[in-house]
């Protein structure tokens, strides 16, 4: 079982290397990316089933002692998020293959292999058992994302790419300095050992470390007030790239934030995190309301949704953290579908600006359905996965009697719906005969694959809603393992 974990990281890397040198032989790249991503998804499924029944799996790379060497840990939380992440990247890659044939997508010679590098970075970030490997994983993810974002070299991409790179590079440097502080005060960077040693530190030092990493991971997760790079850069990238970023990158930040802060027992930061969660929700949705471009509205929604996950973490209760994990799992496919639909709209209409499109519901009923279902889910309308995930979080908030955040979370849901209605009326309603509307493009064969991939992702997100009972049980168990850090410590150290 442990060798499977290694494969998850090595296979995408090797496939990426071959993909880079494949040159004009596009079919080689297509087969490699799809097969390795499908393989990764299958492995993730097997790991989830195994971890669910047998408990945490640990791989010690090179069989070093955990205090010195790299450990990869698959616990329930990691396995859950891993499966969703791998499946999402696979779907997006299928969409990308379809989109390439219609000439609107990213440069296929680069985007496929780079997506694989990003994949192995995501896997490493989810599974790693020490902070330094986490730093390396973040760099892997970021470097490939820098290139994916700017490789077309358009003016807007270079401009927003600069903000994106500067913010994230700064956060990475802070991460290194934070590592130095952690190592100097505890003598280790292994998460399991840190879970033992950080709670024993003096309060000021402990809080300092907690706050420092809140800033570092918070920049990656785009929480208030560190989110400015996100709504600026995401809309400028090609659709498939934005869909992966939107679905995964910020979520990896949140995942790591939850993992680090819960394992090291930073409960004292709870009120601060809750305040930030509320602000993140409000500012995100306010930004979405002000925009009038589909991709920009959706980008601001990412921020407001991060607030919910942060809320679950800030509560520092079993129900809260389970809620955050489940919200994370629900959010990844839903957000990806929305961006893919945004891509389909752009593909068809030549723009994603609301005032230039209209009447799509009449001309493209399937597209309207593909948008409406995840949009309602994101807003938290029953019976979709967004509703149950939010309900779980609100329930956790009421249980701990934190009224303000519950009120904000509920109000925020309504505002999310309002901004979704804005997209709906702008894009799907109306006659669509405005003089500015561009003529409908003749769609090439790849279009079917794009719609198919979007539909598959949508079905996956509906399946999450349908199987919410078992998912919630898994989330609760994952949260319990995280809060009682002895489970993690024992699995790694012994």
């Amino acid at each position, binding site marked *: 079982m442990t060798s499977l974990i290694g494969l998850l990281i090595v296979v995408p890397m090797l496939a990426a290397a071959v993909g880079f040198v494949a040159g004009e032989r596009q079919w080689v790249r297509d087969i490699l990316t799809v097969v390795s991503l499908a393989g990764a998804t299958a492995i993730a499924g097997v790991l989830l089933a195994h971890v669910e029944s047998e408990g945490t799996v640990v791989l010690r790379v090179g069989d070093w002692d955990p205090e010195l060497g790299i450990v990869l840990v698959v616990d329930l939380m990691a396995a859950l998020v891993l499966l969703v992440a791998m499946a999402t990247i696979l779907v997006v890659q299928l969409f990308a293959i379809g989109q390439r044939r219609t000439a609107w997508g990213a440069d296929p010679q680069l985007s496929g292999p780079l997506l694989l590098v990003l994949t192995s970075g995501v896997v490493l970030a989810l599974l790693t058992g020490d902070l330094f490997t986490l730093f390396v994983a973040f760099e892997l993810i970021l*470097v490939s994302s820098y290139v994916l974002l700017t490789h077309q070299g358009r003016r807007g991409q270079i401009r927003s790419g600069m903000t994106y790179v500067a913010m994230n*590079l700064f956060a990475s440097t802070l991460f*290194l300095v934070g590592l130095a502080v952690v190592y100097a005060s505890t003598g280790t960077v292994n998460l399991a050992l840190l879970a033992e040693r950080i709670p024993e530190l003096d309060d000021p030092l402990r809080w300092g470390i907690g706050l420092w990493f809140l800033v570092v991971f918070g920049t990656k997760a785009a929480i208030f007030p560190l989110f400015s790079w996100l709504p600026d850069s995401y809309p400028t990238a090609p659709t498939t790239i934005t869909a992966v970023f939107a679905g995964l990158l910020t979520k990896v930040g949140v995942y790591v934030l939850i993992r680090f802060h819960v394992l090291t027992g930073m409960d004292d930061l709870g009120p601060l995190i809750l305040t930030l969660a509320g602000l993140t929700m409000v500012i995100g949705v306010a930004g979405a309301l002000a925009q009038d471009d589909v991709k920009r509205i959706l980008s601001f929604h990412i921020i407001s949704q991060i607030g919910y996950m942060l809320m679950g973490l800030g509560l520092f209760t079993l129900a809260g953290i389970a809620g955050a994990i489940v919200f994370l799992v629900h959010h990844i496919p839903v957000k990806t579908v929305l961006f893919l639909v945004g891509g389909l709209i752009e593909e068809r209409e030549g723009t994603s600006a609301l005032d230039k499109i209209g009447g799509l519901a009449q001309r493209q009923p399937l597209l309207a359905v593909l948008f409406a279902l995840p949009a309602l889910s994101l807003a938290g309308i029953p019976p979709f996965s967004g509703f149950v995930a939010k309900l779980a979080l609100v329930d956790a908030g009421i249980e701990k009697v934190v009224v303000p955040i519950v009120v904000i979370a509920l109000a925020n849901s309504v505002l999310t719906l309002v901004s979704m209605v804005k997209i709906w009326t702008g894009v799907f309603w109306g006659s669509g005969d405005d003089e500015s509307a561009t003529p409908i493009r003749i769609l090439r064969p790849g279009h079917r694959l794009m719609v198919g991939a979007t539909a598959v992702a949508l079905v996956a997100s509906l399946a999450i809603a349908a199987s919410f009972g078992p998912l919630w049980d898994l989330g609760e168990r994952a949260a319990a393992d995280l809060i009682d850090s002895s489970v993690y410590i024992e699995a790694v150290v012994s």
Partner: protein
Amino acid sequence: MSITLALVVGGLTSVGVYLITSRSLTRMLLGFALLGHAAVLALLAAGGEAGERPISGDAPVAELSDPLPQAFALTAIVISFGLTLFLLALARRQAQLTGDDLVEDDLEDRRIAIETEAEGDDA
């Protein structure tokens, strides 16, 4: 941690942060290089007192330097080397597009801000 090392880390950080707040990408690049150095020195300082060479096995364990932070530092240097190259490429592309390497304003943001203001005046 020796006071010299602490002062150097502090100095590099402050100059680096100052440079990063600049609009010119070339200056930002230099800023990131300095910040990277500061972080690497901080990592070295985290390893404690310098001692004999580790791993080669010609001194007792108690007298050795801690090799782990040095391994971290090396990895970090390699990564920052790659990123410096990427930033240079970005600056070059920006220079091709606009003739200089300054970070531009977000036009979309500006447009929305102006529209919102105009709407406020109407009301």
